[in-house]
Protein backbone atom coordinates (compact mmCIF):
# COMPACT_ATOMS: atom_id res chain seq x y z
CA UNK A 1 0.00 0.00 0.00
CA UNK A 2 2.83 2.35 0.98
CA UNK A 3 4.68 1.45 -2.20
CA UNK A 4 1.62 2.37 -4.29
CA UNK A 5 1.33 5.68 -2.46
CA UNK A 6 5.01 6.35 -3.17
CA UNK A 7 4.54 5.60 -6.88
CA UNK A 8 1.50 7.90 -7.08
CA UNK A 9 3.34 10.65 -5.21
CA UNK A 10 6.39 10.33 -7.51
CA UNK A 11 4.16 10.43 -10.60
CA UNK A 12 2.31 13.53 -9.41
CA UNK A 13 5.60 15.20 -8.47
CA UNK A 14 6.92 14.33 -11.94
CA UNK A 15 3.91 15.93 -13.66
CA UNK A 16 4.14 19.03 -11.48
CA UNK A 17 7.84 19.32 -12.28
CA UNK A 18 7.13 18.97 -16.01
CA UNK A 19 4.51 21.74 -15.88
CA UNK A 20 6.90 23.95 -13.91
CA UNK A 21 9.77 23.35 -16.34
CA UNK A 22 7.48 23.95 -19.32
CA UNK A 23 6.22 27.23 -17.81
CA UNK A 24 9.78 28.37 -17.12
CA UNK A 25 10.85 27.54 -20.67
CA UNK A 26 7.85 29.46 -22.07
CA UNK A 27 8.65 32.47 -19.87
CA UNK A 28 12.31 32.38 -20.90
CA UNK A 29 11.44 32.04 -24.60
CA UNK A 30 8.94 34.92 -24.44
CA UNK A 31 11.50 37.08 -22.62
CA UNK A 32 13.97 36.14 -25.36
CA UNK A 33 11.74 37.72 -28.01
CA UNK A 34 13.16 41.02 -26.83
CA UNK A 35 16.48 41.42 -28.56
CA UNK A 36 15.67 38.74 -31.11
CA UNK A 37 17.34 40.98 -33.69
CA UNK A 38 20.72 39.44 -32.86
CA UNK A 39 19.30 36.14 -34.11
CA UNK A 40 17.60 37.69 -37.15
CA UNK A 41 19.16 35.20 -39.56
CA UNK A 42 18.04 32.18 -37.51
CA UNK A 43 14.54 33.70 -37.18
CA UNK A 44 14.27 34.20 -40.95
CA UNK A 45 15.44 30.63 -41.56
CA UNK A 46 12.72 29.37 -39.20
CA UNK A 47 10.08 31.60 -40.81
CA UNK A 48 11.02 30.13 -44.18
CA UNK A 49 10.97 26.57 -42.80
CA UNK A 50 7.62 26.95 -41.06
CA UNK A 51 5.94 29.12 -43.70
CA UNK A 52 7.19 28.08 -47.11
CA UNK A 53 8.06 24.55 -45.94
CA UNK A 54 4.52 23.85 -44.72
CA UNK A 55 2.71 25.45 -47.64
CA UNK A 56 2.32 22.28 -49.65
CA UNK A 57 0.80 20.21 -46.83
CA UNK A 58 -1.67 22.92 -45.82
CA UNK A 59 -2.74 23.34 -49.44
CA UNK A 60 -3.44 19.60 -49.67
CA UNK A 61 -5.16 19.62 -46.27
CA UNK A 62 -7.33 22.58 -47.23
CA UNK A 63 -8.25 21.23 -50.66
CA UNK A 64 -9.43 17.84 -49.48
CA UNK A 65 -11.13 19.20 -46.37
CA UNK A 66 -13.19 21.61 -48.48
CA UNK A 67 -14.01 18.93 -51.04
CA UNK A 68 -15.14 16.41 -48.42
CA UNK A 69 -17.20 19.05 -46.62
CA UNK A 70 -18.95 19.92 -49.87
CA UNK A 71 -19.80 16.28 -50.55
CA UNK A 72 -20.99 15.53 -47.00
CA UNK A 73 -22.71 18.89 -46.58
CA UNK A 74 -24.67 18.39 -49.79
CA UNK A 75 -25.93 15.02 -48.55
CA UNK A 76 -27.20 16.62 -45.31
CA UNK A 77 -28.73 19.68 -46.99
CA UNK A 78 -30.36 17.92 -49.95
CA UNK A 79 -33.50 16.69 -48.09
CA UNK A 80 -34.29 20.30 -47.22
CA UNK A 81 -33.58 21.54 -50.75
CA UNK A 82 -30.79 23.65 -49.32
CA UNK A 83 -27.82 22.29 -51.27
CA UNK A 84 -27.20 25.79 -52.61
CA UNK A 85 -26.18 26.85 -49.08
CA UNK A 86 -23.38 24.31 -48.88
CA UNK A 87 -20.80 27.10 -49.18
CA UNK A 88 -22.16 28.67 -45.95
CA UNK A 89 -21.52 25.41 -44.18
CA UNK A 90 -18.05 25.10 -45.67
CA UNK A 91 -16.88 28.66 -44.99
CA UNK A 92 -18.13 28.86 -41.40
CA UNK A 93 -16.94 25.42 -40.33
CA UNK A 94 -13.58 25.89 -42.02
CA UNK A 95 -12.86 29.42 -40.80
CA UNK A 96 -14.12 28.83 -37.25
CA UNK A 97 -12.87 25.33 -36.54
CA UNK A 98 -11.57 22.97 -39.17
CA UNK A 99 -9.08 25.28 -40.88
CA UNK A 100 -7.18 26.32 -37.74
CA UNK A 101 -7.31 22.89 -36.11
CA UNK A 102 -6.45 20.76 -39.14
CA UNK A 103 -3.70 23.12 -40.29
CA UNK A 104 -2.28 23.17 -36.77
CA UNK A 105 -2.34 19.37 -36.49
CA UNK A 106 -0.61 19.01 -39.85
CA UNK A 107 1.98 21.63 -38.95
CA UNK A 108 2.50 19.99 -35.54
CA UNK A 109 3.33 16.80 -37.42
CA UNK A 110 5.77 18.52 -39.71
CA UNK A 111 7.20 21.49 -37.83
CA UNK A 112 6.69 20.51 -34.17
CA UNK A 113 8.38 17.14 -34.57
CA UNK A 114 11.13 18.80 -36.63
CA UNK A 115 11.80 21.28 -33.83
CA UNK A 116 11.80 18.51 -31.22
CA UNK A 117 14.11 16.18 -33.14
CA UNK A 118 16.52 18.96 -34.15
CA UNK A 119 16.91 20.30 -30.61
CA UNK A 120 17.01 16.77 -29.19
CA UNK A 121 19.83 15.84 -31.61
CA UNK A 122 21.68 19.00 -30.62
CA UNK A 123 21.22 18.06 -26.97
CA UNK A 124 22.61 14.54 -27.29
CA UNK A 125 25.55 15.68 -29.42
CA UNK A 126 26.48 18.41 -26.89
CA UNK A 127 25.67 21.22 -29.34
CA UNK A 128 23.41 22.89 -26.76
CA UNK A 129 26.29 22.85 -24.27
CA UNK A 130 28.56 24.18 -27.03
CA UNK A 131 26.15 27.10 -27.56
CA UNK A 132 26.29 27.90 -23.85
CA UNK A 133 30.07 27.56 -23.89
CA UNK A 134 30.18 30.04 -26.77
CA UNK A 135 28.29 32.58 -24.66
CA UNK A 136 24.97 32.13 -26.50
CA UNK A 137 21.65 31.74 -24.72
CA UNK A 138 20.36 28.50 -26.32
CA UNK A 139 16.76 29.21 -25.36
CA UNK A 140 16.77 32.57 -27.11
CA UNK A 141 18.61 31.20 -30.14
CA UNK A 142 16.57 28.03 -30.53
CA UNK A 143 13.23 28.52 -28.74
CA UNK A 144 12.50 32.25 -29.14
CA UNK A 145 13.30 32.17 -32.85
CA UNK A 146 11.03 29.16 -33.45
CA UNK A 147 8.31 30.65 -31.27
CA UNK A 148 8.34 33.88 -33.30
CA UNK A 149 8.29 31.92 -36.57
CA UNK A 150 5.37 29.69 -35.53
CA UNK A 151 3.24 32.48 -34.01
CA UNK A 152 3.74 34.61 -37.13
CA UNK A 153 3.46 31.99 -39.83
CA UNK A 154 0.79 29.58 -38.61
CA UNK A 155 -2.01 32.20 -38.77
CA UNK A 156 -0.92 32.97 -42.34
CA UNK A 157 -0.86 29.29 -43.22
CA UNK A 158 -4.33 28.97 -41.69
CA UNK A 159 -5.59 31.76 -43.94
CA UNK A 160 -4.20 29.81 -46.90
CA UNK A 161 -5.84 26.60 -45.64
CA UNK A 162 -9.18 28.36 -45.21
CA UNK A 163 -9.03 29.92 -48.66
CA UNK A 164 -8.01 26.69 -50.35
CA UNK A 165 -10.70 24.72 -48.47
CA UNK A 166 -13.45 27.05 -49.66
CA UNK A 167 -11.94 26.81 -53.15
CA UNK A 168 -11.89 22.99 -52.91
CA UNK A 169 -15.55 23.09 -51.90
CA UNK A 170 -16.28 25.26 -54.94
CA UNK A 171 -14.66 22.69 -57.26
CA UNK A 172 -16.95 19.96 -55.91
CA UNK A 173 -19.95 22.32 -55.90
CA UNK A 174 -19.37 23.11 -59.58
CA UNK A 175 -18.44 19.64 -60.80
CA UNK A 176 -20.77 17.39 -58.79
CA UNK A 177 -23.49 19.61 -57.30
CA UNK A 178 -24.01 22.00 -60.25
CA UNK A 179 -24.15 25.01 -57.91
CA UNK A 180 -23.69 28.35 -59.62
CA UNK A 181 -20.36 30.04 -58.81
CA UNK A 182 -22.05 33.37 -58.03
CA UNK A 183 -24.30 31.81 -55.38
CA UNK A 184 -21.47 29.70 -53.99
CA UNK A 185 -19.11 32.63 -53.37
CA UNK A 186 -21.86 35.02 -52.27
CA UNK A 187 -23.15 32.66 -49.57
CA UNK A 188 -19.62 31.67 -48.61
CA UNK A 189 -18.68 35.27 -47.75
CA UNK A 190 -22.08 36.31 -46.39
CA UNK A 191 -21.99 33.58 -43.80
CA UNK A 192 -18.81 34.95 -42.25
CA UNK A 193 -18.78 37.61 -39.56
CA UNK A 194 -15.84 39.73 -38.49
CA UNK A 195 -15.62 37.79 -35.23
CA UNK A 196 -15.16 34.54 -37.15
CA UNK A 197 -12.18 35.96 -38.98
CA UNK A 198 -10.61 37.56 -35.89
CA UNK A 199 -11.07 34.48 -33.71
CA UNK A 200 -9.99 32.31 -36.62
CA UNK A 201 -6.67 34.15 -36.58
CA UNK A 202 -6.20 34.22 -32.80
CA UNK A 203 -6.63 30.45 -32.56
CA UNK A 204 -3.78 29.57 -34.94
CA UNK A 205 -1.50 32.02 -33.14
CA UNK A 206 -2.20 30.12 -29.89
CA UNK A 207 -1.69 26.81 -31.71
CA UNK A 208 1.61 28.16 -33.07
CA UNK A 209 2.70 28.90 -29.52
CA UNK A 210 1.78 25.36 -28.47
CA UNK A 211 3.56 23.73 -31.43
CA UNK A 212 6.77 25.73 -30.93
CA UNK A 213 6.97 25.44 -27.16
CA UNK A 214 6.00 21.77 -26.92
CA UNK A 215 8.55 20.94 -29.61
CA UNK A 216 11.25 22.97 -27.86
CA UNK A 217 10.42 21.50 -24.45
CA UNK A 218 10.54 17.95 -25.82
CA UNK A 219 13.91 18.73 -27.43
CA UNK A 220 15.50 20.44 -24.45
CA UNK A 221 14.36 17.76 -22.01
CA UNK A 222 15.80 14.91 -24.09
CA UNK A 223 17.83 12.36 -22.19
CA UNK A 224 19.81 9.40 -23.41
CA UNK A 225 21.18 9.18 -26.94
CA UNK A 226 19.31 8.46 -30.14
CA UNK A 227 16.55 6.57 -28.33
CA UNK A 228 15.85 9.77 -26.44
CA UNK A 229 15.59 11.70 -29.71
CA UNK A 230 12.90 9.30 -30.95
CA UNK A 231 10.99 9.47 -27.67
CA UNK A 232 11.09 13.29 -27.66
CA UNK A 233 9.85 13.49 -31.24
CA UNK A 234 6.90 11.19 -30.54
CA UNK A 235 6.16 12.99 -27.28
CA UNK A 236 6.11 16.32 -29.07
CA UNK A 237 3.58 15.12 -31.66
CA UNK A 238 1.26 13.50 -29.12
CA UNK A 239 1.40 16.35 -26.59
CA UNK A 240 0.97 19.15 -29.10
CA UNK A 241 -1.97 17.38 -30.81
CA UNK A 242 -3.78 16.91 -27.51
CA UNK A 243 -3.02 20.45 -26.37
CA UNK A 244 -4.23 21.88 -29.70
CA UNK A 245 -7.55 20.04 -29.44
CA UNK A 246 -8.00 20.98 -25.77
CA UNK A 247 -7.04 24.60 -26.42
CA UNK A 248 -9.48 24.71 -29.33
CA UNK A 249 -12.34 23.72 -27.02
CA UNK A 250 -11.49 26.30 -24.38
CA UNK A 251 -10.84 29.06 -26.92
CA UNK A 252 -14.17 28.32 -28.61
CA UNK A 253 -15.94 28.56 -25.23
CA UNK A 254 -14.13 31.82 -24.54
CA UNK A 255 -14.94 33.31 -27.93
CA UNK A 256 -18.59 32.28 -27.58
CA UNK A 257 -18.74 34.21 -24.32
CA UNK A 258 -17.40 37.31 -26.11
CA UNK A 259 -19.38 36.93 -29.34
Amino acid at each position, binding site marked *: MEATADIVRDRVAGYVLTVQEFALLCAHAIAGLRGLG*RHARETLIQIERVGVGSLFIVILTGTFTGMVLALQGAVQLEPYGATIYVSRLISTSVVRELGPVLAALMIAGRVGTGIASEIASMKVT*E*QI*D*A*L*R*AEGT*DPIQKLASTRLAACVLMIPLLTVVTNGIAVFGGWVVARLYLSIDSYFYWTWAFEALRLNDIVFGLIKPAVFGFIIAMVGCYAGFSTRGGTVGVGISTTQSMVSSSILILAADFFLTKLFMAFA
Partner: protein
Amino acid sequence: MTATVAEEQIALRRVTLTLGTHRVLRDVSVTAMRGETTVILGASGSGKTTILRLILGLYRADSGAILIGGRDITGLTERELMPVRLEMAMVFQGAALFDSLTVGENVGYRLWEQRTVSDHEIESRVRRSLTYVGLEDTIGKMPAELSGGMRKRVGIARALASGAQTILYDEPTAGLDPINTCMTARLIKGLKSQGLTQIVVTHDLDTAHAVADRIVVVDRGRVIFEGSPEDLKASPLPAIQTFLDPSLLAAKGVFPRPELGEWGETP
Protein backbone atom coordinates in the same frame (compact mmCIF):
# COMPACT_ATOMS: atom_id res chain seq x y z
CA MET B 1 51.99 33.26 -1.35
CA THR B 2 50.52 36.26 -3.20
CA ALA B 3 52.54 35.40 -6.31
CA THR B 4 51.12 31.86 -6.34
CA VAL B 5 47.53 33.11 -6.08
CA ALA B 6 48.17 35.57 -8.91
CA GLU B 7 49.26 32.72 -11.18
CA GLU B 8 46.20 30.63 -10.54
CA GLN B 9 43.89 30.85 -13.54
CA ILE B 10 41.34 28.25 -12.52
CA ALA B 11 40.84 26.65 -9.12
CA LEU B 12 38.28 24.26 -7.72
CA ARG B 13 38.16 24.25 -3.92
CA ARG B 14 36.54 21.29 -2.17
CA VAL B 15 33.85 20.96 -4.80
CA THR B 16 31.11 18.38 -4.38
CA LEU B 17 28.52 17.56 -7.01
CA THR B 18 25.59 15.14 -7.06
CA LEU B 19 23.69 14.40 -10.28
CA GLY B 20 20.38 12.69 -9.57
CA THR B 21 21.22 10.26 -6.79
CA HIS B 22 24.83 9.76 -7.88
CA ARG B 23 27.59 11.62 -6.05
CA VAL B 24 29.86 12.44 -9.01
CA LEU B 25 32.52 14.54 -7.27
CA ARG B 26 33.55 14.58 -3.60
CA ASP B 27 35.67 17.35 -2.12
CA VAL B 28 37.55 17.89 -5.37
CA SER B 29 40.29 20.52 -5.41
CA VAL B 30 42.12 21.22 -8.68
CA THR B 31 44.32 24.14 -9.69
CA ALA B 32 45.32 25.20 -13.21
CA MET B 33 48.13 27.74 -13.40
CA ARG B 34 48.15 30.52 -15.99
CA GLY B 35 50.08 29.58 -19.15
CA GLU B 36 50.39 25.93 -18.15
CA THR B 37 48.77 22.76 -19.45
CA THR B 38 47.03 20.79 -16.73
CA VAL B 39 45.98 17.26 -17.59
CA ILE B 40 43.16 15.59 -15.70
CA LEU B 41 43.64 11.85 -15.95
CA GLY B 42 41.27 9.14 -14.89
CA ALA B 43 39.28 6.13 -15.93
CA SER B 44 35.97 6.48 -17.77
CA GLY B 45 33.21 7.63 -15.42
CA SER B 46 35.62 8.99 -12.82
CA GLY B 47 34.24 12.54 -13.08
CA LYS B 48 36.86 14.20 -15.33
CA THR B 49 34.44 15.74 -17.84
CA THR B 50 32.22 16.91 -14.98
CA ILE B 51 35.12 19.05 -13.73
CA LEU B 52 35.31 20.81 -17.11
CA ARG B 53 31.55 21.37 -17.10
CA LEU B 54 31.74 22.87 -13.63
CA ILE B 55 34.52 25.22 -14.76
CA LEU B 56 32.32 26.40 -17.65
CA GLY B 57 29.31 26.76 -15.36
CA LEU B 58 27.36 24.10 -17.26
CA TYR B 59 26.82 22.32 -13.92
CA ARG B 60 26.37 23.93 -10.53
CA ALA B 61 28.35 22.61 -7.58
CA ASP B 62 26.51 21.49 -4.44
CA SER B 63 29.28 22.96 -2.30
CA GLY B 64 32.78 24.36 -2.60
CA ALA B 65 34.15 27.20 -4.72
CA ILE B 66 35.14 27.50 -8.39
CA LEU B 67 37.51 30.38 -9.04
CA ILE B 68 38.10 31.69 -12.56
CA GLY B 69 40.79 34.35 -12.60
CA GLY B 70 40.29 34.70 -8.84
CA ARG B 71 36.50 35.21 -9.09
CA ASP B 72 34.14 32.68 -7.53
CA ILE B 73 31.52 31.72 -10.14
CA THR B 74 29.47 29.32 -8.03
CA GLY B 75 26.77 31.85 -7.17
CA LEU B 76 26.49 33.47 -10.60
CA THR B 77 23.29 33.42 -12.63
CA GLU B 78 23.21 32.07 -16.21
CA ARG B 79 23.35 35.64 -17.53
CA GLU B 80 26.29 36.54 -15.28
CA LEU B 81 28.10 33.39 -16.41
CA MET B 82 28.02 34.42 -20.10
CA PRO B 83 31.01 36.81 -19.96
CA VAL B 84 32.91 34.31 -17.79
CA ARG B 85 32.39 31.63 -20.43
CA LEU B 86 33.67 33.98 -23.11
CA GLU B 87 37.05 34.02 -21.33
CA MET B 88 37.32 30.30 -22.10
CA ALA B 89 36.75 27.94 -25.00
CA MET B 90 35.97 24.25 -24.90
CA VAL B 91 36.81 21.48 -27.32
CA PHE B 92 34.07 18.90 -26.78
CA GLN B 93 34.65 15.15 -26.96
CA GLY B 94 32.52 14.77 -30.09
CA ALA B 95 33.61 18.25 -31.28
CA ALA B 96 29.96 19.46 -30.98
CA LEU B 97 30.15 21.35 -34.26
CA PHE B 98 26.87 22.99 -35.26
CA ASP B 99 25.41 20.77 -37.99
CA SER B 100 23.60 23.58 -39.78
CA LEU B 101 26.72 25.75 -40.18
CA THR B 102 29.74 25.33 -42.43
CA VAL B 103 33.17 24.68 -40.97
CA GLY B 104 34.08 28.34 -41.43
CA GLU B 105 30.88 29.52 -39.73
CA ASN B 106 31.50 27.08 -36.87
CA VAL B 107 35.03 28.32 -36.36
CA GLY B 108 33.98 31.96 -36.43
CA TYR B 109 30.73 31.39 -34.51
CA ARG B 110 31.64 33.30 -31.36
CA LEU B 111 33.11 36.18 -33.32
CA TRP B 112 30.03 36.48 -35.56
CA GLU B 113 27.78 36.37 -32.50
CA GLN B 114 29.76 38.89 -30.44
CA ARG B 115 30.56 41.26 -33.32
CA THR B 116 33.45 42.83 -31.44
CA VAL B 117 35.75 42.77 -34.49
CA SER B 118 35.25 43.58 -38.17
CA ASP B 119 33.99 41.03 -40.70
CA HIS B 120 37.40 41.12 -42.38
CA GLU B 121 39.14 40.36 -39.08
CA ILE B 122 36.72 37.50 -38.40
CA GLU B 123 37.39 35.92 -41.79
CA SER B 124 41.10 36.36 -41.32
CA ARG B 125 41.02 34.74 -37.86
CA VAL B 126 38.91 31.84 -39.14
CA ARG B 127 41.41 31.18 -41.95
CA ARG B 128 44.40 31.48 -39.61
CA SER B 129 42.86 29.06 -37.12
CA LEU B 130 41.98 26.53 -39.79
CA THR B 131 45.45 26.84 -41.29
CA TYR B 132 46.95 26.22 -37.84
CA VAL B 133 45.11 22.90 -37.55
CA GLY B 134 45.85 22.03 -41.21
CA LEU B 135 42.27 22.24 -42.46
CA GLU B 136 42.18 25.50 -44.43
CA ASP B 137 40.59 23.77 -47.44
CA THR B 138 37.54 22.62 -45.43
CA ILE B 139 36.24 26.14 -44.73
CA GLY B 140 33.14 25.75 -46.92
CA LYS B 141 32.37 22.14 -46.01
CA MET B 142 29.65 20.97 -43.65
CA PRO B 143 30.65 19.12 -40.45
CA ALA B 144 28.98 15.94 -41.72
CA GLU B 145 31.54 15.80 -44.54
CA LEU B 146 34.49 15.57 -42.11
CA SER B 147 36.12 12.59 -40.42
CA GLY B 148 36.19 12.29 -36.63
CA GLY B 149 39.79 13.52 -36.43
CA MET B 150 39.07 16.49 -38.69
CA ARG B 151 36.03 17.44 -36.61
CA LYS B 152 38.15 17.49 -33.47
CA ARG B 153 40.71 19.70 -35.17
CA VAL B 154 37.94 22.04 -36.32
CA GLY B 155 36.84 22.10 -32.67
CA ILE B 156 40.36 23.22 -31.72
CA ALA B 157 40.29 25.83 -34.50
CA ARG B 158 36.97 27.13 -33.12
CA ALA B 159 38.55 27.48 -29.69
CA LEU B 160 41.58 29.25 -31.16
CA ALA B 161 39.57 31.68 -33.30
CA SER B 162 37.54 32.74 -30.27
CA GLY B 163 40.65 34.39 -28.88
CA ALA B 164 40.05 32.83 -25.44
CA GLN B 165 43.13 32.61 -23.24
CA THR B 166 41.94 29.40 -21.59
CA ILE B 167 41.08 26.27 -23.57
CA LEU B 168 39.42 23.20 -22.08
CA TYR B 169 39.72 19.89 -23.94
CA ASP B 170 37.41 16.95 -23.29
CA GLU B 171 39.11 13.75 -24.45
CA PRO B 172 40.73 15.41 -27.49
CA THR B 173 42.34 12.19 -28.71
CA ALA B 174 39.62 9.67 -27.86
CA GLY B 175 38.72 7.49 -30.82
CA LEU B 176 41.48 8.87 -33.05
CA ASP B 177 44.06 6.87 -34.98
CA PRO B 178 47.73 7.20 -33.88
CA ILE B 179 48.52 9.82 -36.54
CA ASN B 180 45.60 12.07 -35.61
CA THR B 181 46.35 11.50 -31.90
CA CYS B 182 49.94 12.61 -32.41
CA MET B 183 48.80 15.59 -34.51
CA THR B 184 46.30 16.71 -31.86
CA ALA B 185 48.87 16.36 -29.07
CA ARG B 186 51.32 18.47 -31.09
CA LEU B 187 48.64 21.14 -31.61
CA ILE B 188 47.99 21.32 -27.87
CA LYS B 189 51.70 21.44 -27.14
CA GLY B 190 52.16 24.18 -29.73
CA LEU B 191 49.44 26.29 -28.11
CA LYS B 192 51.17 26.01 -24.74
CA SER B 193 54.14 27.85 -26.20
CA GLN B 194 51.75 30.70 -27.09
CA GLY B 195 51.01 31.22 -23.40
CA LEU B 196 47.51 29.74 -23.30
CA THR B 197 46.18 28.13 -20.16
CA GLN B 198 44.93 24.66 -21.07
CA ILE B 199 43.12 21.91 -19.22
CA VAL B 200 43.09 18.57 -20.97
CA VAL B 201 40.82 15.77 -19.80
CA THR B 202 41.99 12.41 -21.07
CA HIS B 203 42.52 8.80 -20.16
CA ASP B 204 45.32 8.48 -22.70
CA LEU B 205 48.65 8.32 -20.83
CA ASP B 206 50.80 9.04 -23.88
CA THR B 207 48.87 12.25 -24.67
CA ALA B 208 48.98 13.22 -21.00
CA HIS B 209 52.76 12.86 -20.80
CA ALA B 210 53.23 14.60 -24.15
CA VAL B 211 51.40 17.79 -23.20
CA ALA B 212 51.24 18.06 -19.39
CA ASP B 213 52.96 20.51 -17.08
CA ARG B 214 50.87 19.23 -14.20
CA ILE B 215 48.76 16.11 -13.87
CA VAL B 216 45.71 15.56 -11.71
CA VAL B 217 44.38 12.03 -11.33
CA VAL B 218 40.71 11.55 -10.52
CA ASP B 219 39.37 8.25 -9.25
CA ARG B 220 35.67 7.68 -8.52
CA GLY B 221 35.00 11.36 -7.99
CA ARG B 222 38.03 12.12 -5.82
CA VAL B 223 41.38 13.66 -6.65
CA ILE B 224 43.98 11.09 -5.68
CA PHE B 225 47.05 12.76 -7.17
CA GLU B 226 48.21 16.22 -8.21
CA GLY B 227 51.77 16.90 -9.34
CA SER B 228 54.25 16.79 -12.19
CA PRO B 229 54.38 13.96 -14.78
CA GLU B 230 57.60 12.75 -13.13
CA ASP B 231 55.94 12.64 -9.71
CA LEU B 232 53.09 10.64 -11.20
CA LYS B 233 55.45 7.94 -12.46
CA ALA B 234 57.11 7.77 -9.06
CA SER B 235 53.85 7.68 -7.10
CA PRO B 236 53.57 4.64 -4.81
CA LEU B 237 49.77 4.84 -4.61
CA PRO B 238 48.24 1.48 -5.69
CA ALA B 239 45.42 3.19 -7.61
CA ILE B 240 47.99 5.22 -9.60
CA GLN B 241 50.16 2.17 -10.19
CA THR B 242 47.28 0.14 -11.59
CA PHE B 243 46.16 3.07 -13.74
CA LEU B 244 49.67 3.41 -15.19
CA ASP B 245 50.05 -0.34 -15.61
CA PRO B 246 46.63 -2.01 -15.93
CA SER B 247 48.21 -5.45 -16.27
CA LEU B 248 48.63 -5.33 -12.48
CA LEU B 249 44.87 -5.84 -12.30
CA ALA B 250 45.19 -9.17 -14.07
CA ALA B 251 47.21 -10.49 -11.17
CA LYS B 252 44.30 -9.63 -8.87
CA GLY B 253 41.91 -11.61 -11.09
CA VAL B 254 39.93 -8.51 -12.12
CA PHE B 255 40.34 -9.14 -15.86
CA PRO B 256 38.47 -11.86 -17.76
CA ARG B 257 40.35 -15.15 -17.98
CA PRO B 258 40.06 -16.55 -21.52
CA GLU B 259 42.17 -19.57 -20.55
CA LEU B 260 39.08 -20.87 -18.70
CA GLY B 261 37.37 -21.67 -21.99
CA GLU B 262 35.34 -20.30 -24.87
CA TRP B 263 32.77 -17.62 -24.14
CA GLY B 264 29.44 -19.20 -23.32
CA GLU B 265 30.94 -22.54 -22.30
CA THR B 266 30.88 -23.77 -18.75
CA PRO B 267 34.51 -24.43 -17.79
